[in-house]
């Protein structure tokens, strides 16, 4: 990032911004210089802000003809050396699944923001957490994915930067699973000084002293170094089952198994480095509320109310990263509780991996579902009271 474009980043200070705008600002800070998108409520504001801001920092914005092409643009941009992003909402996210699968297999760093809205179908245009399973399992085939779940305007900024860092570090598509609630929310955003923000970029063969003739586009390491187009490495991006050198002629079962396993394991095997949880009141608690995204804002209210007013010993655990699922971290902090409450803006989706992780650590797992709107603290509290009183 040249000094010329740096001066167009937001200067350190406190701003009053919408979550969508904070997301775009985070992307620009992270070094995003290509943005492609297609209008969809409630995600369009991310794109509108990108259209305004990208040329100011020397980047390029394009409004494409659909969500498939928007996501496809990221592939070409990433291969040509740029950090690239798109934002969409749930129906558009469905359309992007093939690109996500392709990006997993070609190990392409890119960032997709899904400002979730209810489904199925057109559903509605309010808030939702109904894509959290699609995020992990929507793409065809094996592999893994990284997905973050922001809960505030500040996190829309911070997590978008983190998303780019993770994408570049692990050569993987990274999803920011925002919700309409956080995208349309307005609250203060603190921009720290540039030198306090960690910005990571992909490892290149040049950095490791690997010359073009001995470069293996899918080799060298569990996360292979990535050569950009235009730098003389004659790199071929290919999503058919391939050898380390990109050869697709000689199919063999072992190469197939080993290469796809590596692509999955570089994420799943590093879940402890990648995934984060946040906890409060967990010490010796009898019950725990496990939540993510904007629900964590009302859930923490409910937990505090339950402890203070009802004397119910309930802890609070928030999944900051949804995927790879932080199972070990969950098992480290949840041990022998009565009830795990899982409030979600869906009919019980993350409840499933939570159950898988904690089935021997609790007596019951209680889903607190809602659709189309954020839980009120009372809604969560009444369920806690009903079960735990």
């Amino acid at each position, binding site marked *: 990032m040249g000094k*010329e*474009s740096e*001066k*167009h980043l*937001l*200067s350190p200070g406190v701003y009053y911004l919408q979550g969508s705008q904070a997301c775009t600002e985070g992307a620009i800070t992270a070094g995003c*210089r*290509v943005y*492609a998108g297609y209008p969809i409520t409630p995600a369009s504001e991310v794109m509108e802000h990108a259209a305004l801001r990208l*040329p*100011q*920092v*020397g980047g*390029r914005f*394009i409004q*494409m*003809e*659909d969500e*498939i*092409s*928007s996501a*496809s*643009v*990221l*592939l*070409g*941009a*990433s*291969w*040509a*050396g*740029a950090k*690239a992003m798109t934002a969409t909402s749930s129906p558009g996210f469905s359309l992007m699944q*093939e*690109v996500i699968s*392709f990006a997993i297999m070609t190990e392409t760093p890119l960032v997709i923001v899904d400002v979730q809205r209810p489904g199925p179908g057109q559903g509605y245009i309010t808030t939702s957490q109904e894509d959290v399973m699609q995020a992990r399992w929507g793409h065809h085939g094996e592999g893994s994915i990284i997905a973050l779940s922001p809960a505030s305007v500040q996190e829309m900024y911070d997590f978008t930067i983190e998303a780019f860092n993770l994408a570049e570090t692990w050569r993987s598509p990274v999803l920011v699973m925002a919700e309409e609630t956080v995208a349309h929310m307005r609250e203060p955003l603190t921009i720290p000084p540039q030198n306090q923000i960690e910005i990571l970029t992909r490892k290149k063969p040049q950095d490791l002293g690997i010359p073009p003739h001995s470069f*293996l586009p899918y080799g060298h390491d569990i996360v292979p170094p990535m050569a950009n*187009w*235009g*730098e*003389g*490495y*004659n*790199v*071929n*991006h*290919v*999503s*058919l089952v*391939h*050898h*380390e*050198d*990109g*050869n*697709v*002629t*000689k199919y063999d079962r072992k*190469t197939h198994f080993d290469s796809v396993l590596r692509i999955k394991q570089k994420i799943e095997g590093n879940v402890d480095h990648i995934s984060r949880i946040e906890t409060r009141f967990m010490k010796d608690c009898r019950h725990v509320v496990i939540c993510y995204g904007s629900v964590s804002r009302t859930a923490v209210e409910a937990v505090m109310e339950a402890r203070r007013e009802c004397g119910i010993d309930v802890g609070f655990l928030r999944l900051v990263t949804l995927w790879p699922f932080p199972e070990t971290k969950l098992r480290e902090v949840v041990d022998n509780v009565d009830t795990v409450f899982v409030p979600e803006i869906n009919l019980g989706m993350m409840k499933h991996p939570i159950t898988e992780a904690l089935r021997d650590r609790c007596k019951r797992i209680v889903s607190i579902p809602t659709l189309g709107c954020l839980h009120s603290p009372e809604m969560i509290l009444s369920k806690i009271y009903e079960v735990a009183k």
Partner: protein
Amino acid sequence: MKRHPMLKYLKEKGPAGPRMPTIMCPGCGAGQVLNYTLHAVDDILREDGIKKEEVVFISGVGCSSRLTSHYLEFDSGWTIHGRALPIATGALLANPSLKIIVFTGDGDAMAIGGNHFIHTCRRNLNVTILCINNGLYGMTGGQVAPTTPAGIATTTTPYGNIEEAFDICKMAETAGASYVARWTTAHPRQTIKSIKQGVRKRGSAVIEILSQCPVHKKASAVDMLRELKATTVSIKKTSCQPKGKTPIGVFCDKNKPEWTEKYQEIITQHSSRENR
């Protein structure tokens, strides 16, 4: 022993073993188009002072797209069915100095990627689109394509095709491409010349190359090439198109602003201001 001069641009083998001969069926026109393209690129590299690393090949999925599967000693991408053009768009947005050549087929460009084809031409993005038109889906077994002539029987039109065929060149010209031409695999020198013009053109250049599929048409490549010559007519030679003959030649060659050039003006204008 002399070897084919274009082999210098091909990855014949690597650590995982040989990559050639190509996967193409005997007599496939796609291999010929690759040969013509490399001849054109060879000339351009010598004549224009362009570096080899500035040239990027992108394809989607299909027989035509296998050309970039792993043979080229260039930067390349063998990508998603129909999406080569948006991917080329992304590469151009990241690095507008790249010379991008897209190999696509009639199914890849006209059916699944039809919308991207239209909008790439409309934006006049600086990309050379080589559309190898064999009139069917070869890779998947010879199904009907948007370019299959009416009446033809294929594996999915066993009673004959009831739909009209697309005219790729008319579509490209209407959508706004700077350069549009049609040749056949039986016209090597003209095709090479057109590819050179297309790569040199600032803006979208669409070159449709009518090609043979000896396997699914159950004919010999030589007979099919003769037929391609016999059933086409140069637009230079005739003002009125003889009935039943397909016009070939350069249909459109104009100079107009290219997308990244226009966007650069926006960058220049809006990045020079001090902090917002």
